[in-house]
């Protein structure tokens, strides 16, 4: 790769270039992959980025124990194998895992509730990094706290590893509905509102002015079919993460490609009908309503 000499005026790591990468991912599908082989299938299917990890969330659930950052050797091998951006997960609050991910050239860090949290009170100070972070949220307060800490992209959490879309819908509707309500609020109520939802006042004010989150907002956690992806897009998110939904299905390559097409043509039911045909069995999944307390991942994060 013909790398050029850095110009002294060039500024790396500004918030504009961090959030800008997420803007380039919009309307796309980010896929969980656990091997070089998966990563190549994902890129070939039209993924805009891959999330490199050792186990997909469904297997993390099954495996139990402490879930940590993946082996850097695996992540590096995946980085070498594709031309699209590579993301990787670190534990909530584990800033050293994030430093390691930055050092090996990961393009985006997901500070993720899918892994076992390292800090039960604090998330990472994401302003301190050159590479951008994406963080999960269930409601507007959580989203704006993460943006306050420097997240350059948000995803609604859903319930990872279930193949059940219900939590993804709940979280997206909760965040987007709260923004619609916020837009109607007079300015003199914003301080009390910020206090109520536990979010920084300035970020609340900015969100009201822009009428949307100030960063890109994807949906995650439970997307298993092209219709699921199109549902989240019609509800109003900017793109989708698909974790276990692709590589836990019968025919990952076909399903991955169909979900990519559905995310582009989400408003066109005729096209959606065509691409939803003959994809083989989706992942079996677990209904979220059958999960015991303590088995849900979305409650992690503060």
């Amino acid at each position, binding site marked *: *790769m013909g*790398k050029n000499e850095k110009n002294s005026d060039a500024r790396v790591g500004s918030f504009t270039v961090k959030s800008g990468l997420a803007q*380039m*991912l919009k309307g*796309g599908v980010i896929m969980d992959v656990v091997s070089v082989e998966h990563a190549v299938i994902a890129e070939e299917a039209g993924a805009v980025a891959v999330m490199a990890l050792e186990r997909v969330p469904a297997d993390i659930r099954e495996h139990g124990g402490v879930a940590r950052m993946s082996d850097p050797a695996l992540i590096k091998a995946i980085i070498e194998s594709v031309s699209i951006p590579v993301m990787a997960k670190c534990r909530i609050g584990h800033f050293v895992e994030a430093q390691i991910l930055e050092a090996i050239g990961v393009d985006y860090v997901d500070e993720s509730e899918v892994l076992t949290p390292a800090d039960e009170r604090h998330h990472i100070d994401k302003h301190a990094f050159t590479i951008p972070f994406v963080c999960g949220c269930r409601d507007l307060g959580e989203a704006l706290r993460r943006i306050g800490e420097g997240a350059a992209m948000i995803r609604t959490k859903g319930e990872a590893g279930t193949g059940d879309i219900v939590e993804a819908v709940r979280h997206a509707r909760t965040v987007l509905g709260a923004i619609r309500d916020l837009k109607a609020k007079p300015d003199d109520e914003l301080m009390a509102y910020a206090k109520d939802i536990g979010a920084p006042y300035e970020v609340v004010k900015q969100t009201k002015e822009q009428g949307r989150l100030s960063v890109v907002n994807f949906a995650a956690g439970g997307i298993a079919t092209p219709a699921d992806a199109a549902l989240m897009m019609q509800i109003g998110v900017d793109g989708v993460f698909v974790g276990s939904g692709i590589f836990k299905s019968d025919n990952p390559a076909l399903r991955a490609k169909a979900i*990519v097409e559905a995310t582009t043509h989400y408003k066109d039911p005729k096209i959606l009908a065509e691409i939803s045909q003959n994809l083989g069995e989706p992942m079996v999944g677990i209904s979220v309503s059958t999960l015991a307390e303590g088995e849900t991942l979305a409650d992690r994060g503060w």
Partner: protein
Amino acid sequence: MVMKIGVLALQGAFIEHIHMLRQIGVEAVEVRLPEDLEDLDGLIIPGGESTTIGKLAVMYQLMDPLRQFAVDRPVWGTCAGMILMAKAIGMDQPLLSVMDIVVERNAFGRQKDSFQEDLYVKVLKNGDSIPFPGIFIRSPRLVQTRGRAVKIASRADGTAVAAVENKLLATAFHPELTSDTRFHQYFLSLIRQ
């Protein structure tokens, strides 16, 4: 007659272009299928993932209609759009190959190397004196311009990052992520020519 410009909306930062076009008084529409190209005065291919956009363009039979469009109507590609317009990129992926330029993908490194740099671009209004904010995200660069393609912007170290060929325009950076409308105005001037 209000000018009508399409923005290829298969994937990527198409809304940002649409907002900027509307801000400067132009009608802007999303293009996802070949029939969406009718009645357009020009087209923008936005930033995004060039592999994703290329694959979707192939799947939905857009490649030939886009090439046909570029024969007599202005097209502007930003970042991934510039890659798609190139004749060669040294990698195997679908290209429109409508501009006589050679481009290198991810030429400045990974996301940790993404940067902002002020550019002096003569073809823009006050381009000699007022710099244009260049936002480079996992950006490509121009390796070569051939035939009638000429470079119109370079980094301070001389690396070429924008070119024009008749009514075709390519930029490695993202004017749609700034509040500076001069590049969009310049594209309108190519349409009016």
